[in-house]
């Protein structure tokens, strides 16, 4: 029996991962993802485990090659959008991305910023990244991406406060929401990064 669940996690990747793992523990295996929904099928509880990885900074062809590599290793993967992305002209500029990944198009990396990776439980630990310098670099990329996401809201806020846009509480609220949209995940990944660095120092 399949089950469709409406959920949106924004930039909180770890929360999404934890939720998918809680669903798997209850006996629901992911079979499809949409912009705002997840479709599951029933399975034995705790049969699968999930990791969610940010790949939005990679050129789409590179993310696609990585995905094929994961398939070679026997993992199943699903693309997932990180933003709701109502982009103009079906493309988006990402100043924080690598090479051609800076221009995300609807046929490329737009709405394919995350990879959900599924592994059949075998009692062994499941980590996609085991190298500390690589994990730190990944956190830094995500932090940068979310800081850039706050820029349009900040610009809007400045324009309202300097009188370029007519002041209204509605405009101020909208701009603040836009700023927080980027700044909350930015703060979250900054904290995660410093927590990880502290932990690494302990094991050095």
């Amino acid at each position: 029996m399949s089950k469709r669940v409406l959920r949106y996690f924004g930039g909180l990747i770890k929360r999404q991962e934890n939720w998918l793992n809680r669903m798997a523990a209850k006996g629901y295996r992911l079979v499809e993802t949409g912009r705002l929904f997840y479709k599951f099928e029933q399975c034995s509880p705790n049969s699968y485990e999930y990791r969610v990885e940010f790949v939005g900074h990679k050129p789409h062809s590179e993310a696609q090659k990585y995905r094929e590599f994961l398939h070679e290793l026997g993992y199943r993967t699903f693309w997932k959008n990180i933003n709701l992305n109502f982009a103009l002209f079906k493309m988006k500029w990402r100043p924080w991305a690598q090479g051609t990944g800076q221009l995300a198009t609807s046929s490329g990396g737009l709405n394919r910023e995350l990879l959900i990776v599924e592994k059949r439980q075998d009692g062994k630990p499941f980590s996609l990244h085991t190298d500390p310098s690589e994990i730190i670099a990944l956190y830094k990329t995500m932090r940068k991406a979310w800081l850039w996401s706050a820029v349009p809201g900040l610009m809007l806020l400045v324009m309202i406060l300097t009188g370029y846009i007519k002041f209204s509480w509605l405009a101020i609220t909208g701009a603040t929401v836009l700023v927080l949209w980027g700044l909350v995940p930015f703060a979250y990944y900054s904290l995660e990064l410093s927590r990880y660095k502290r932990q690494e120092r302990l094991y050095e």
Partner: protein
Amino acid sequence: MRDNVQGGALTETTFLILLALYQPNHGYGIMQFIEQATHGRVQLGAGTLYGALNTLVEKGWIEPYNHDSEERRKTYRLTIEGKVKAQREFERLKEVLAIASSIMGGDEQ
């Protein structure tokens, strides 16, 4: 994965991947080799392995090797330069081990 360029030391991950590729091998085989050879102490994440393989191909220490067109998985093998690097690391580790043995040797005290 950062190898120490000045001192010439390789990371454990790099050295183990080079050892795994003395015989042509694919990603899954490399992971299995490392896990078995280290009795589960080192377990490489798939993303880390992917990044390491790309870096080593760029450096010219390993190369894609698909002799069997039926094989869907991408296979790699060590290049001559990769063998030289692995041999150098082996010599370096022997030297470190000799220093440690001269100081710590006969540790049954």
